[in-house]
C-alpha cells in the first residue's frame, strides 16, 4: 500500500494485521528515504547500528528519533530550496524550539490527511467556523508557530471563519452573537486550543454571566492539559463547562505534534484517543525501550506516514501513556486507541545520598 492508497479508504478502516502490513511498508520506505537524504539521520542510524535494508520492517523494530532532537538539530531530507515552510513549535517557555522543514509534497499530504480525518467526524461540507482564538496569531508572520499553523490548517474545514477573541484575548461578544445569529439554522464548527478556550472563553463567559445557545455545534480542541490538570479540570468537566457557556456542543479533543502535523489523533465519543490509518502508537518501557502490552504505562512513540521532508515519521515523545485496546472500541473505529497520561516527570537531580541504603 502507498499513501495514495490510504487516501482512497475510510481513515479508520484498517484492522491490526492490515495496518501493520500497510504501515510497515510505507514507514520502512520512509526510513530508507531519510537515510539516503538526511546526513544526520544516517549518522544516527549508523551509530545505533541500524541498517535500513530493502523490504518492510515490523513497526516495533523501526528506529525511533527522540522528539527533542528537532530542537537540537536541523533535520532535513530535501534540499534547502525545496523547503516551503519552516514550522516552529512553541515548546515550554525558555526552551529551544523545534524546527520542522516542510516541502510542498509534505504540506499537501498533511492537509489531505487532516481533511480525511476531520471530515470523517463532520462530513464533507464546509461548515461555518468560529475560531476561539485571536486573529493576531495569524497576522504575526514573523514566527510561523504551530498555533498559527493549526488555525490556518483548520480553516479549510470552514466558511465564514470568524475569530472570537480580540487582540487582547477578550471575547468580542457582539461579533460572536452575530455569528450565532447568522448561522442559527445550521450546524456550526468551532476550533481552538484547550487552555485558551478554558481561560478566555469558558472562564471569561462564566464570570461575565453571558451565555450562548448553540443548537448544533462541534468543537475541536487541541493542546496540553497540564495547566488544566493543575486546576483539577478533566475532560468531562471541560466538556460540561463548554456546554454550559456555549450550548449544545459536541466536543472532540485531539492530539497532534508539531513534528507530525496532519496525522492527528482524535478522541472519540467514548473518550478514547484513536490512531487513524495514517498513524500508529507504540508504548515503550523506559528501562529497555521494549514494546509494552495493552494497559501498560510507558513512553509514547508515535508513527506517522506523512513526514517525507524531515525524518519525523517515528518519534519517541516525552509523554507517558498506555494502549487501551485495538480494533474493538465501541465507536467502531479500527486501529489502536490509547490514553495520554501527560508529560513524564522531570528527573530529580540526584545528590550524593540515599541510594546506598535503598535496595
Amino acid at each position: 500500500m502507498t499513501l495514495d492508497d490510504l487516501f482512497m479508504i475510510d481513515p479508520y478502516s484498517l484492522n491490526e494485521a492490515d495496518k501493520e502490513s500497510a504501515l510497515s511498508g510505507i514507514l520502512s520506505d520512509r526510513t530508507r528515504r531519510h537515510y539516503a537524504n538526511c546526513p544526520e539521520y544516517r549518522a544516527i542510524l549508523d551509530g545505533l547500528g541500524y541498517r535500513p535494508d530493502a523490504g518492510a520492517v515490523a513497526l516495533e523494530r523501526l528506529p525511533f528519533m527522540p522528539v527533542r532532537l528537532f530542537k537540537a538539530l536541523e533535520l532535513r531530507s530535501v534540499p534547502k530550496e525545496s523547503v516551503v515552510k519552516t514550522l516552529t513549535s512553541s515548546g515550554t517557555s525558555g526552551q529551544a524550539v523545534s524546527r520542522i522543514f516542510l516541502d510542498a509534497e509534505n504540506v499537501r499530504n498533511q492537509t489531505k490527511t487532516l481533511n480525511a480525518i476531520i471530515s470523517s467526524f463532520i462530513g464533507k461540507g464546509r461548515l461555518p467556523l468560529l475560531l476561539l482564538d485571536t486573529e493576531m496569531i495569524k497576522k504575526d508572520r514573523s514566527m510561523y508557530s504551530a498555533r498559527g499553523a493549526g488555525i490556518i490548517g483548520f480553516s479549510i474545514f470552514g466558511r465564514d471563519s470568524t475569530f472570537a477573541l480580540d487582540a487582547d484575548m477578550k471575547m468580542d461578544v457582539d461579533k460572536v452573537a452575530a455569528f450565532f445569529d447568522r448561522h442559527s439554522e445550521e450546524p456550526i464548527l468551532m476550533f481552538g486550543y484547550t487552555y485558551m478556550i478554558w481561560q478566555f472563553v469558558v472562564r471569561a463567559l462564566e464570570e461575565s454571566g453571558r451565555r450562548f445557545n448553540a443548537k448544533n455545534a462541534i468543537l475541536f480542541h487541541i493542546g496540553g492539559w497540564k495547566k488544566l490538570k493543575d486546576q483539577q479540570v478533566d475532560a468531562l468537566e471541560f466538556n460540561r463547562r463548554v456546554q454550559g457557556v456555549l450550548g449544545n456542543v459536541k466536543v472532540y479533543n485531539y492530539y497532534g505534534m508539531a513534528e507530525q502535523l496532519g496525522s492527528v489523533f482524535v478522541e472519540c465519543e467514548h473518550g478514547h484517543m484513536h490512531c487513524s490509518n495514517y498513524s500508529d502508537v507504540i508504548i515503550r518501557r523506559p528501562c529497555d525501550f521494549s514494546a509494552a502490552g495493552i494497559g501498560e504505562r510507558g513512553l509514547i512513540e508515535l508513527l506517522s506516514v506523512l513526514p517525507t521532508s524531515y525524518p519525523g515519521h517515528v518519534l519517541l515523545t516525552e509523554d507517558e501513556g498506555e494502549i487501551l485496546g485495538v480494533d474493538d472500541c465501541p465507536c467502531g473505529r479500527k486501529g489502536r486507541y490509547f490514553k495520554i497520561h501527560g508529560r513524564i516527570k522531570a528527573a530529580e537531580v540526584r545528590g550524593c545520598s540515599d541510594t546506598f541504603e535503598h535496595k
Partner: protein
Amino acid sequence: MTRLSISNAPLRVFDESVVEFLGELSAELLKSPIVRRHPDLSAFAFYVRKANLARLQGTMNPGGGRLGRGLCFHIAPANIPVNFAFSWVFSLLAGNANVVRLPSRDFPQVDALLEVVDGALGRHPALRERNAFVKYPRTDVETTAMYSAMADCRMIWGGDRTIAAIRAMPTMPRCVDVCFADRYSVALIDGAAVLAADDARIARLAEDFYNDTYLMDQNACSSPQVILWESDSPSARERFWTAVEAVAKRKYVLQDAVAVDKYTMLCEEAAGSLATGRVTRAGNLLYRVELEALPKDVFAHRGRGGLFFEHSLKSREGLFEVVTEKFQTVTQFGIDALALRDEIVSHGLRGIDRIVPIGQAMDIGAVWDGYNLVETLSRTVSAS
C-alpha cells in the same frame, strides 16, 4: 534582607577552639541515626574527626604565623547537599568567620546537619558569633552583593555562569576569590590490570565506579565522562563493563526522564560528531560510545545516567594533547599515579589537578580543584 552583625577578627589556622568544636561535631554526628542513612553526611562526620584534622594539620606548611583572612562568604552549589559543610570547614580551619549560603533546594541531610551544627555552636558562643548559615533564593542578587561587599574571601561553587555573575559584584580590593568552575574528568584504566585482578577485586572496582558515576547521574564535575584504556583488550573491557552493568542492574533506578535524555544525547552524539564511532547498547542501563580519536573538544562530550565515552589510548601523549584547564580529576585503576603526576608536571599541562583511585572521585579534600584551600583562605605573617 537583614544585615548580619558578625565578628570577623581572624583566628589562627587550626585554632584550638575550632579543632575542639569540630571534634565534638564529628562525635555527635556519628552518634546521630540520620547520619547512617546518608553516606555523604557520614563522610563529612569522618572527615572532621579530631584524628583526621591532626593529620591534615601535619600536611600543612608550618613556618610562620598563619591567620585567617577575616570573613569568608560561601556560595554553595545547588545540587550537592553537603558540599557547603566542607567549604565551611576548610575556611573555619583557615581561621575565618563565615557566611554560608546554603543550597536553595531542600535536602533532608542539610536540615539534619544544620540541627547538629546549631547544637554544637550553642556550646561555643565565640564561634557562634563568627558563623552564619543563610538561605535565600538565587534570584536575590542584592543579598549576594551585600555579603560580597563584606567579604575578605569568597568560595564560589556552582559553575561558569554563577562565577561570572558573582565576580561582577564589587568586593573589597584585597578580597580573594576561590572559584570552582565547570570541570571535566576522565578515568584511566589499565586493561591488563583488569584481567589480572581476581573476581572480588573486579566486583569492588565495579561498585567503586558505580559510586563515582551512576550514584549522582554523572552530574558531578569529578565524575569521569571518558574511560581511557591502556593495555586495552576486548576481554578486559568485557570484564569491566559486565561487572559495572551488574551493579547498575542491582542498584540504579533509571528515571523515565533520564532514559529519554540519555537516548537523546546518544542520538545527538551520533549525529554531531565525526569522531564518534560505534555505540554499544544493550538495554538502557549502559550506553557506550567509542571515540576513534580524542577530539580537541572532548570536554564537550558529557554523559548522563550511564552514558560513557571510551577510547583506546595508544600513548599518554594522545591524552595530554587534549587536556585543557577544564580537566580536573583522573580516576584510575592499575596506573602508577605518581608517575602520571610527574608526567603532568613535566609536560606543563594546564589541567588535571587530581589523580585518585576509582571510587574516590567524590571524596572532597582540603586540596581541591588544584587549590590548597586552608592555605588559600589564610594569610601568612612573615618576619625577618
